[in-house]
């Protein structure tokens, strides 16, 4: 099954890339847009859910859906692909797409969406008009309330698709009306596969470590991975680990993790050494370093919860001092010393 998905996904992207090269060299789309999947088959990851969407695309009669998940994992793309596949050439008349950049307060819902729902469009049987509400978690509760009965009354002609990051921002009555599809973060292998396709299409020079760094920094966010890839290529022309980290430019979590580990052991010298050589001397700002420390401590292994909370408190206070304008190495060193203190015997 996955093979077939892979093949079809390379197909259009290759075609696209050729077009881009043959056509105008001056204007180049961001790769994220250039390689945005057009068909559901091209969507990477969340196989089971996308499989359902494909069935919907084939059979029609789409239920109201909510797709929720982290950024950059294909929510909007899935919805757009689904709409495109369902409606084909009627896409233009049959789809109303609103995202957070559009006005969609209560009034917009009452006027624009309701009018659209009432509008008659000639569609094949089993197909309905689709209202796509992207970034639906940024809609006000009142606007969502106004959607409730609209979704029911016009359900024979209009279906709704919501895409959002946090499904808890959608009011309960709407959730109760919708099929809730949760998208999981993409696995590294899935991101890698897609990156490879793009690399092949763009004939990018790379080494494996560079790709690994890209994937690591993206944390399952396909959009970020592709953006970083393009930036690296544009900036350096060659994708290796060093170049990627220059682009991504945040303290390497692994370094910070090692630093925290040293603190746990009470080994202040090596902690300071890491801070000095691997973080500070590379030119990272104190805010970035402390921010990464905060994030790492929240999830790092081997800390009991009280310890973790204590660490967070210390790091947090240092964070405040740094934000106050005292972003010096001394502050960071002091923070490390305080983290070490309970563990020095």
């Amino acid at each position: 099954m996955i093979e077939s998905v892979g093949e079809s996904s390379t197909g259009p992207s290759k075609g696209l890339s050729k077009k881009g090269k043959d056509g105008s060299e001056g204007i180049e789309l961001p790769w994220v847009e250039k390689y945005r999947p057009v068909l559901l088959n091209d969507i990477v990851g969340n196989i089971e859910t996308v499989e359902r969407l494909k069935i919907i695309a084939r059979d029609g009669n789409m239920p109201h859906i909510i797709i929720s998940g982290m950024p950059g994992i294909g929510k909007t793309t899935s919805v757009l692909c689904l709409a495109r596949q369902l409606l084909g050439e009627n896409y233009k008349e049959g789809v109303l797409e609103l995202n957070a950049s559009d006005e969609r307060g209560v009034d917009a819902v009452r006027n624009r969406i309701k009018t659209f729902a009432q509008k008659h469009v000639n569609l094949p049987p089993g197909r309905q008009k689709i209202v796509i509400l992207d970034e639906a978690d940024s809609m006000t509760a009142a606007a969502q309330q106004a959607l409730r009965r609209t979704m029911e009354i016009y359900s024979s002609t209009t279906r709704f698709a919501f895409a959002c990051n946090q499904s808890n921002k959608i009011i309960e009555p709407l959730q109760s009306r919708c099929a809730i599809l949760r998208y999981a973060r993409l696995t590294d292998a899935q991101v890698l596969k897609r990156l490879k396709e793009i690399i092949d299409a763009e004939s990018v020079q790379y080494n494996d470590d560079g790709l690994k760094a890209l994937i690591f920094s993206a944390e399952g966010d396909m959009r970020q991975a592709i953006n970083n890839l393009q930036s690296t290529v544009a900036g350096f022309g060659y994708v290796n680990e060093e170049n990627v980290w220059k682009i991504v430019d945040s303290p390497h979590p692994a370094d910070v993790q090692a630093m925290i580990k040293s603190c746990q052991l009470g080994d202040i010298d090596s902690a300071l050494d890491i801070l000095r050589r691997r973080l500070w001397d590379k030119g990272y700002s104190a805010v970035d370093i402390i921010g990464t420390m905060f994030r790492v401590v929240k999830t790092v292994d081997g800390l009991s919860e009280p310890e973790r909370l204590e660490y967070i408190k210390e790091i947090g206070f240092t964070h405040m001092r740094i934000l106050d304008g005292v972003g010096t190495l001394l502050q960071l060193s002091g923070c490390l010393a305080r983290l070490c203190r309970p563990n020095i015997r």
Partner: protein
Amino acid sequence: MQRNISSFFRPKDGSSQGQKGSSAAVSSSPPAARKAGTDQENKKPTSTTGSPKSAKSNKADDVKKPAPKPAKRLDSLFSDEEEDVKMKKPRSKKAKDDDDDYKDEPAPQAVTISSDDEDATASPKKKKPTAATRKRKQDDDQTARPTKKRAPAANTAAKKEDDLEVLADAPPAKKKFNPAEFAARRAAVNTGVCAELPEGAPNCLAGLAFVFTGILQTLPRDDGIALVKKYGGLVRTAPSRNTNYVVLGEEAGPKKLEVIKKLGIKTIDENELFELIKTRPANGGDTAEGIKAQKKAAEEEKKIIEMSKTIGIPEPAKAVKASSSGSTSSQASRQTSEQVNKPPRSLLWTDKYAPRSIKDICGNKGAVQKLQKWLEDWPANLKANFKRPGPDGSGVFRAVMISGPPGIGKTTAAHLVAELAGFDVIETNASDTRSKNVIAEALGTVLDNKSIAGYFGETKQDVDAAKRKIVLIMDEVDGTSAGDRGGAVQMSAFCKTTHVPLILICNDYSLQKMRTFDRTTFNIQFRRPDANAIRSRILSIAYREGLKIPAPVIDQLVQSTHADIRQIITLLSTFSLGETGRKEMSFEQGQRMAQDWQKHIVMKPFDIASKLLNGEMFGARSRATLNDKIELYFNDADMSPLMVQENYLRTRPAAGANKVQTLTQLDRAASSISDSDLVDRMIHGSQQQWSLMPLHGVLSTVRPASFVANGGSERFMFTSWLGNYSKGNKLSRYLQEIQSHARLRISGDAEEVRTQYLSSFFDNLYTPIATRANEGGVEDAIKFMDEYYLTKEDFDAVLELGVGPKNGEELWKKIPTATKTAFTRKYNTGSHPVPFIRASTVTDPRKVKKEVPDLEEAMDDVLGEEEEKKEEENEEEEEEDTDLSKDKYIKKPKASAKASSKATAKAPAKAPAKGKGKAKK
């Protein structure tokens, strides 16, 4: 590093997975072989791939394997586990096939109900207890057990292998929290730790009722309950006569034990429970309970089939009719019926299976009846002018308010009832604008309408007889928002005067904005129906759609969706979209799906507080990560710190063995809260450092809770900070007022008034009245007030501002009413100097113009003649006021008439007081 990447480059789904699969198969075969003999082992590989069913399951596996799991390691762990489950089934089936020649009979899992064969529908339940099958079952059990033992082994083997492979890139896998990952890990933990979870015959606990009490040793109670439910057992919360077994853990409540002893219920521990599951035959076998349960199940099934014919769009009825009528016409009519059938395909299930009659509504029978009765009696009540309350008191209301959580059929019920009672429905909902004016205009005309719907029907003669009436349904009343200001009030005003019945629907009746409907509507509450009410309906829908869903799965769905029928139906329709062969939902699938579909709603402050301060989340067995707890804070970042601050003293800290320790914990919590205020100042202050939000969450909410959390014994309170804050504002406003009045005599600012003057004010105002009211005390107090330009409001404020022994409000209550009224009367009759006039009390426009400079100068330090002049005017004004209050009612019409004739266009609508004042001059 290099090796890792290369593992990525391998076509992961192909070779690596295949490897894993084969390794699992290899490790699994020895124990199975030990039991089943060598020739079977030879057969096995071919059988698993050969039979159509297993082939399908393999394919399903393939599809599932590359499923997006957050981390590679978890991914493979997860899919392995799934594989185990999947592989077990075909194997045991194969074993059956070897033992007896029952190849033709479908295995219980594979049965799909077909509507034309009544017998076949009952087959999975009826046919099993025959002797042959029971024997088979036993064999089956024996083969099943070894396979089960193998499962953990294979699991760990696979885990190890994976660990090696992933070790190098562990950091990326662990980097950030992800709910899906968490869920996966949880699932893994469950099957890993509690490897001894028994496999039993399906539905083997049918008809048995269990009660869980105390803390079980080897498995969490939830898992135990899930286990019992999975095998068809009932789980009750409290022991009663009908309970068959009590699963007893440690530290069971003494009261429960007593009840158990008294009723003589058999108690077992979890091992005995496992044994029970392993040994009992499917469907409870021929034990008394089993037979009873089977009988009941059969009856239920019959009912469901019966019911499934009546629900939904009545298409099958047509089809049946068509085929039964003559053979020549049947061809044509079938075609038409097919055409008719086409459109419903494009309906949502929720529409397709929407209730068509009152008895289709799940649960809330009483509420629906109430509604029905109210609507039926409405015309009669109208005649009686809503004076007769009737037996349930609904007769005096022209409107009803239906309230209840979403998805339980409120709107449906309202529409059905209206239809049944012969009303036409006009509906407005949140998608219509509902501000005050719009409602006033639109509804005003609607209320006098008559329906003409009947005139377009085929039978015109009925129209006059039926005289279709109108009912107005206003849905989502609580959905009014900022744009709809005044809408609710206007609506409730209509509820008092309406000439058509009005049905209002809302979710949350306890909201502040719903208060206005308290007296004008008859409140009917819809509650979440229980699983029993929903089950049969869902089952019949599933039956109509050819889905097979065991009852326990439905119970589970009901539980996880909070009995939201609409959502369950949507869920099923989505489920049916899966791979086309899949028409049966297993317990595990249901569990996973229910978990996925759990509605994520922003939690209310109370829920956040009780979740945080309940020891559970910080207990040793808690699976909640720090990120989960911080997430709780973000559910309501404004309220949750306040709730923790309010309630952190109401718990009994877990670490508090003695008083000193308790105090230490409380001290830590308090310090953390105060630290959080420092952070808060950076966030909400001038700097706006929003990046500190997580830190604020930890310091203000999570950390204090971690110190003191352990089951609050008292009820949690709503934060009092907000109330105190607004009270503080109010009091400082009073202080400001007093100071601005008294400033003509004193030189202190508001703070000094509070610290220096108030005490003396109190002594000079309250004390004379309290001690010598009859000996001129009242007069003295009034004189003192005049001297400092204090008004009557200031007097009250002084009392309210008193603290400690001078808590004026308390003391004032003790003064005899006669004295108080004497004081008030005395004060009202006299005239009093006022330092300046507030613009709002000035009424005459001409006067205002004149006084504008005065007003400003009054605020200046320069005082003199202006002052006197102003005072005169004040007195004048006060006279007018008193005058008015005396004869307002008598002269009002005349005065207002005069006023309107005289007044400029500017102030025609103002209160008669102004008119009067002007008329006098």
